[in-house]
């Protein structure tokens, strides 16, 4: 039971990091980006590529399975994932932003998700991989609960990032512009905020968090090209559950989805775990479509 709780919180933290980026793009750019989850896979594999290049830079640090190469690799992955997001935006989404039917953007993101997933499969192959082959010994944290040091690290990092992002959105000028654009685009533009700049930073922040989520997923589970595809539904469920555009909401939504998946094994056969986010999504849409917490103005119709 306690173990399921810990597992749920861990996968919830990873879902939350992905869902933050998704909820930002849904709130600010106003479309459901099916390709967002592929940024997670891309980030994870970019870090893998960097680790294989930087491998000689040092062994594992302390109790963790990773060292300097993965830390540098993650930073590189954040940059490369932001680059991919901005490239996709420039090549595809910007071309379509003016079209009358805004679902065209959703449609395009659906096609882009397939392209990115297949590109990763093409470059890295389909087999499951890991950042390191060192075996980790789980340390007892509480009676009946054992965790890997890597898992504790992942949780800690996710918590720090969420708090940092919250402070950024509340306290900085750019954060204020982002929230304003999500709330009322026309009024924001009238006040002289550069929409293009805000959109650019939305992609960079969303993609960087996705890259970190991907690395943490690879660190605590494993790396496969389908990682993103399997995360699409949990991410959407978390973002909608938390209220579209609402950052703390996405975090809590991610936690709820992660915990529900972990505890579902007590009720459902394990094969149905992936259907849990869908059931949550349906329940939210039927009972409280605005999500648990109020989203931004553009969210509800």
């Amino acid at each position, binding site marked *: 039971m306690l173990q399921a709780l810990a597992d749920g919180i861990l996968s919830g933290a990873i879902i939350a990091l992905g869902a933050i980026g998704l909820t930002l793009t*849904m709130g600010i750019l106003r*479309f*459901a980006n*099916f390709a967002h989850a592929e940024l997670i896979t891309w980030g994870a594999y970019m870090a893998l590529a960097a680790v294989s290049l930087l491998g000689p830079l040092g062994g594992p640090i302390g109790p963790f399975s990773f060292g300097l190469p993965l830390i540098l690799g993650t930073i590189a992955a954040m940059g490369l994932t932001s680059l991919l997001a901005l490239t996709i935006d420039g090549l*595809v989404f910007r*071309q*379509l932003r003016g*079209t009358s*039917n*805004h*679902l*065209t953007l*959703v*449609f*395009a993101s*659906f*096609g*882009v*998700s*397939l*392209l990115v997933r*297949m*590109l990763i*499969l*093409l470059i890295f*192959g*389909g087999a499951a991989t890991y950042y390191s082959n060192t075996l980790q010994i789980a340390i007892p944290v509480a009676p009946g609960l054992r965790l890997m040091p890597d898992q504790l690290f992942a949780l800690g990092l996710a918590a720090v990032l969420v708090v940092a992002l919250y402070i950024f959105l509340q306290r900085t000028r750019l954060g204020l512009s982002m929230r304003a654009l999500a709330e009322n685009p026309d009024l924001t533009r009238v006040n002289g905020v550069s929409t293009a700049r805000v959109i650019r930073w939305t992609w960079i922040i969303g993609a960087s968090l996705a890259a970190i989520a991907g690395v943490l997923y690879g660190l605590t589970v494993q790396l496969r090209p389908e990682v993103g*595809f399997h995360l*699409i*539904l949990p991410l*959407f469920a978390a973002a*909608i559950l938390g209220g*579209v555009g609402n950052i703390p909401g996405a975090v809590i939504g991610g936690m709820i989805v992660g915990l529900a998946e972990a505890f579902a094994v007590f009720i459902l*056969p394990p*094969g*149905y775990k*992936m*259907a849990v*986010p*869908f059931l949550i*999504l*349906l329940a939210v*849409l*039927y009972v409280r*479509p605005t999500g648990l917490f109020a989203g931004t103005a553009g*969210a*509800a*119709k």
Partner: protein
Amino acid sequence: MSGFGIYLVFFLIIALNYGIMVLGLNLQWGYTGLFNAGVVGFYAIGAYGTAILAGPDRAALIGGFGLPFPLAILGGMILCALAAIVVGLATLKLREEYLAIATFGIAITIQLVALNFESLTGGANGLVGLPRPFIDAFESTTSYNLFFLAVVACVTALVYVALEAAVRSPWGRLLNAVREDEVAARSLGKNIALIRLQAFVLGCTLIGLSGGIYVAFIGFVSPLDFLPILTFQIWAMLIVGGSGNNAGALLGAIVVWALWTMSGLAISRFSPVGFQNQAGAIQTMLIGLLIVSMLIFRPRGLIGERATVSSHKERGAP
């Protein structure tokens, strides 16, 4: 019949059957502006529904009602409609993207049910040994396939004619009104959510019909026939042919299926041994590239939607 002729018959059966699916999707996206990201899920419901209703009684399995195929396919279509109602009621009054997300979710869920609910779906093995309608009346596979092609062509033509009549009716104009200007349609007292639900459920039912016909043709169902790539293929067919045009939908089905099979042949012939996975990835990327580039460069597709002008103007009224 030559080898190529035999293959052509097989090709046309599959392409026209996909055409029914594209017609259903066209009703949803082309005419009403609904994004269904779970085409393969509804196709699977139709296929499994048909297989369970038509299959012979088996000790280890639920179902096996041994119904005649037309009834079994009808049953599969009704199951599809029910699933569409559950998803539609949850999402069609909300932000438009929610339908896309929920349909994506139901497709994943159906795939899980197909793989894991072994006593109903046969799990990874699928359901094999289903009866094939009228197979005894034909002495060779070739003549049976020709007969089946005739049946599929008739059904496709019937669906096409019915849809053409529907989209030209006042109801069809309402679909367009909902797509183009929801506020205007609502201000005329139209029930937007209900119209959306009707178009969505009808479209999904047609996708289910296609699934049922597929099962009748190949005589088994396997979860491997219902991979997510199919959704992308059907979408590529619609966008290539021209969404908002039923003839375009059928043309797209044939063109894209031809491109897909030919690229598959080319890749299996020319890719080095040991690189089949990568070659498959390239083939799939082409579908993604086709969708994205059509959306950007030629959103009308090959044929595209006819411009609708007020009927008063055609009559020469002032």
